[in-house]
């Protein structure tokens, strides 16, 4: 029992450390990739090829003065960034990133933190909780810009969550389980779910980009129209937490896409976590590619796309999948 407890704590620490490092180096990758796409170089000065840039950025943010504006709702103002970051990190508790096991004192243990039988629902629920961080930060900042920005962001996140949830139903029907490990294993000996559920994959991908406020749906932080969104009054580490949350959320949605549509850890050869990471990095690269290519949608067009196009498509997909499955069985 004690061994198991210690092992779980170690696993959590390792996953969070790796995740935070991954978030930091995602910013480096973003700046490098987009830089080269835009005939620039990206960071070059700090470390070899700018590799220490994320560390420098992090240190800078920690060293900045932490300003709490007067007249803010202090407890809420302080809780809000935590409420954004913690759900994003907690989602990784159930992400099965490898099927490797270790043998400790005669018992087999999985390397991922845990597997719960409602894994997918748990992740979706956590991403909904993250929305409260956005709303509370806008409300507590006592600034009309932050408030309007947070309303915009949360409206966007909530409307795309619907399409996102619906698009996941098709693969869940195919797998017959909402356990993330179960979904991965369901794809082990057949085709990946992207093949029969391609429409759902596209809907999921678009919703995921909108859900994480990435280009071309980055209206909450459209630089030419407004300076920043809900986090305009935040500084120092609190700002960094929103930033980390945004990137951690990108990892979460990419992980879900990998597990549900791209076969999770399954790969033709080699260790399973390599495949998992490769698929995530490919999705992340796709996000960056989009950001370098596409202009920004208008807010009403964004809502129209979510409610009038994606949700109906996702619903039709659910119905068609159910009918086909019923006919086969």
């Amino acid at each position, binding site marked *: 029992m004690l061994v198991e407890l210690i092992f779980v704590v170690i696993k959590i620490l390792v996953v969070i450390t790796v995740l935070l490092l991954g978030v930091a180096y995602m910013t480096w990758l973003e700046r490098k990739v987009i830089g080269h796409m*835009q*005939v620039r170089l990206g960071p070059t000065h700090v470390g070899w090829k700018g590799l220490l840039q994320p560390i420098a950025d992090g240190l800078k943010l920690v060293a900045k003065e932490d300003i709490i504006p007067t007249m803010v709702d202090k407890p809420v103002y302080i809780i809000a960034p935590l409420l954004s970051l913690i759900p994003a990190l907690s989602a990784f508790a159930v992400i099965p990133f490898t099927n490797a096991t270790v043998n400790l004192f005669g018992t087999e243990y999985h390397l991922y933190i845990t597997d719960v039988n409602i894994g997918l629902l748990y992740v979706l629920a956590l991403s909904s909780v993250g929305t409260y961080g956005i709303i509370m930060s806008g409300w507590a900042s006592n600034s009309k810009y932050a408030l309007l920005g947070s309303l915009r962001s949360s409206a966007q996140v909530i409307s795309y969550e619907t399409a996102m949830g619906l698009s996941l139903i098709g693969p869940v029907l195919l797998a017959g389980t909402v356990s993330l490990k179960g979904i991965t294993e369901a794809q082990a000996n057949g085709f990946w779910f992207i093949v029969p559920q391609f429409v759902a994959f596209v809907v999921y991908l678009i919703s995921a980009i909108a859900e994480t406020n990435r280009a071309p749906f980055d209206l909450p932080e*459209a630089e*030419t129209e407004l300076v920043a969104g809900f986090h305009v009054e935040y500084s120092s580490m609190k700002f960094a937490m929103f930033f980390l949350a945004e990137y951690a959320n990108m990892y979460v949605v990419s992980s879900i896409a990998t597990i549900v549509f791209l076969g999770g850890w399954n790969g033709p050869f080699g260790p399973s976590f390599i495949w998992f990471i490769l698929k995530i990095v490919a999705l992340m690269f796709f996000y960056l590619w989009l950001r370098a*290519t596409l*202009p920004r*949608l*208008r807010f*009403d067009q964004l809502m129209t796309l979510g409610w009038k196009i994606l949700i109906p498509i996702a619903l039709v997909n659910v119905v068609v999948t159910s009918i086909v499955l019923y006919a086969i069985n």
Partner: protein
Amino acid sequence: MSAMVKDNLSEIVTVNMGPQHPSTHGVLRLVVDLDGETIVGVRPDVGFLHRGVEKLAEHRTYHQFIPLTDRLDYLSPLSNNLAYCLAVEKFFDVKIPERAEYLRVIFAELARAASHLVWIATHALDIGAMTVFLYAFRERELILDMFEIATGQRMTSSWIRVGGIREDVPPLFFEKLKEFVSIFDDRINTYENLLTKNRIWLSRTVGIGKLSREDALDYGVSGPIMRGSGIDFDLRRDEPYGIYNRFKFEVAVSDGCDIYSRYLVRVKEMRESNKILQQALDQIPEGPVMTDDPRIEIPSHEDVYEKMEALIRRFYIITKGFAAPKGEAYGCVEAPKGELGFYIVSDGDTKPYRLKIRAPSYVNLGALEAMAKGHMLADLVGIIGSVDIVLGEIDR
């Protein structure tokens, strides 16, 4: 306004935009009346950059005013130089040497390309396509390098003189120009790949910022906005100045009347400029670049160092200037933003009695309300971008 409130049972909110707003491309202030998110009125408030250029002209000799024209539309200074010099030359009925005429065309078309590149860059950035911005500025840099080689200045070049060009360009200029002409079409393809058929770009531009043909005529807009409303008119073809009648090019026209058709017109214009540059490169002869008309000629440095008369003449014309005969003259060019005209009244002195600048951006901005009415506030940024204003020219 109050009638509208009664009719629609809605509330009109008046908001301020600018003059420090990042998307107004300078110190433009707009007072916007909104019904919800829909624009019911836009009133541009200009004058934050007023320098009194027209008044300053009355206290400067004809040559001394040339650097001030650079600072009107600072994105295409050589077009401004050209328009002004054409106006002054009308007083003298002077013959410009062939080589100078060709160089003027090359400068003017490069200036048009540079100005349109800044436009496509900032316009796309306003709508969120950041990569186009960096691509377009990469090509603009090539043009500015050429200007630097030819004139010593990247932006405020002041290189065209009454009676010709200040000095001939070095051979390196033509090497760079050849290289630029050979790649420019391909680079325009790159921008078009990113934008022309992009669904998001289309949904942000098609049908937005409508300016009907009739409205375009009524507001007196010129340049790409006019041609984007389906009016087939280009000063270079229809009232050719300089030697423009020798070049074969098409006038870009599109009758969509919206942001997208203005985009198509400007992209096509860049391609046509490239064609003109190619033809000018093939045809340009050797020879002097300054007229030998003794009334306005600025003697070259070589002459000044060797000939007494040239030294005296140069000293005289630089310090005192030349007197224009009594009368008035209007010179205009198809500048990147539209018809740029200089109207000069002379009382026989070495300085203009009165000088009026017909700035295309100023007139085009007048049509902003007609374009923006009925559209959403979020589109206003795109509409301003499609007008392609430069505040240096609006406020003068």
